[in-house]
């Protein structure tokens, strides 16, 4: 069982520099884990244990989703000083290798179905990519479906795929170059 002294960050499996989006995603994962009929825990925990775990997750989320409460909590943990602003959304991104999974390079050529499979494996929705990247969800669908008839010109497409890759944790440059090169050559064929 998890230690009772575990921090809220530990309960959600994130680092103290996690962005609000990362808190949200980690919460959804943890909350799903302790639903009444969750496959991964129904045979592992009894009702009381599951309820306790769920309460810890909710308590952690209640604090970490609220910038003011999170700031107070960080001060109590000694992570920040009282005087520092609770501007979590403006916090610098975590350095590579801390708090994020490593960037992945998919084998060449990268296809739309490859991107879709990778995204699904990471549990990320198209809506989340659209929100984080400002690329319209319709274009994200076209990219995954390789709708060559409606995809934008390569110069825009490259940027869209780079943004997609950045959000899901793929190497943006390699992913975009491989994907766009394939689409362009298919259009010319």
């Amino acid at each position: 069982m998890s230690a009772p002294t575990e921090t809220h960050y530990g309960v959600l499996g994130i680092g103290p520099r996690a962005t609000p989006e990362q808190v949200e995603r980690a919460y959804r994962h943890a909350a799903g884990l302790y639903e009444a009929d969750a496959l991964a825990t129904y045979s592992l925990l009894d009702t009381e244990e599951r309820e306790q775990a769920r309460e810890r997750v909710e308590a952690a989320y209640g604090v970490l989703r609220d910038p003011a409460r999170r700031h107070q909590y960080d001060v109590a943990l000694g992570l920040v000083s009282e005087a520092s602003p609770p501007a979590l959304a403006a916090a610098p991104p975590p350095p590579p290798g801390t708090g994020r999974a490593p960037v992945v390079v998919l084998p060449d050529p990268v296809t739309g179905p490859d991107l879709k499979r990778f995204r699904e494996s990471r549990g990320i929705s198209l809506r989340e990519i659209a929100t984080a990247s400002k690329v319209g969800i319709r274009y994200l669908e076209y990219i995954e479906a390789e709708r060559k008839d409606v995809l934008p010109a390569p110069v825009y497409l490259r940027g869209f795929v780079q943004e997609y890759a950045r959000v899901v944790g793929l190497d943006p440059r390699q992913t975009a170059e491989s994907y766009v090169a394939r689409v362009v050559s298919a259009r010319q064929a």
Partner: protein
Amino acid sequence: MRRQIWSIGGGKGGIGKSLLAASLGWQLARLGKRVVLVDADLGGANLHTCLGVPGPSRTLGDFILRRVERIEDVVVDTPFPRLRLISGASDVLGAANINYQQKVRVLNKLRCLDVDIVLIDLGAGTSHNIIDFFLISDVSLLAVVPEPTSIENGYRFIKSALYRRLRNAAPNPAVREVIDAALDQKNTQGIRTPLDLLAAVEREDPAAVARLRRELGEFHPRFIVNQVRSPADIAVGHQLVTACARHLGVRASYAGYVHYDDAVWRAVRQRRLFAEKDPDSAPALETRQIARSLVEGETLALTW
């Protein structure tokens, strides 16, 4: 890449484990690896059928019963380059209950085969024979399907394998006794998880617990979720990894998932390897991705 032994177990029968093994072996061979698939489902061998080859006349049973002296003599070719097969022992009465010396002999000889990867398809269940093959592997894969019975058996498999590993490492009879008690889920000491077990061992013999913690840290099963039908099914793999870490203290990882697809059973009906028959189907592409990721040491990690 040095020679490696990989195994794929699952605890439960009928979850497509042999098909996964056959497809992974084929994909690894396509990636340039020299592979020998071993059907260790002693008593229920059918890996040859998954590969679409007739039942070989020489099997692992012939080696176990010393009808042939060298294990190389029971390795047969398949139609696929770089992929060879040691078929199971369904034709040998009693081979399903091989003794300890026979098992050690098989394991030692498999280690000496001149290949890149020996991929062992384990039978269903949690018998010592199955668990021991799983434990000696460099890559220990655990196949589950997103259904309660399979997940339950998957956890049982993990606990059985881990407790056997800890028991083998136990420095004295008193610690072994605690581990034996833990194997009974209704034990009176309240031991339900490996973390409970370590706490009980610490009370019994504080000096022994560091060694068992080390063993626990080196135990690293990798899940494959087979026959997924939805994003929620795919997410089960991530949830299993988190649940193992938080509630069992086990450092598992997610090797990948394979979609349910009618193309697979159509291929089986024709006694064809589905990945070869329909290489652009989702299950074929997904097993290719799993093979590639395992070779490169990658796993599906959640991106926060």
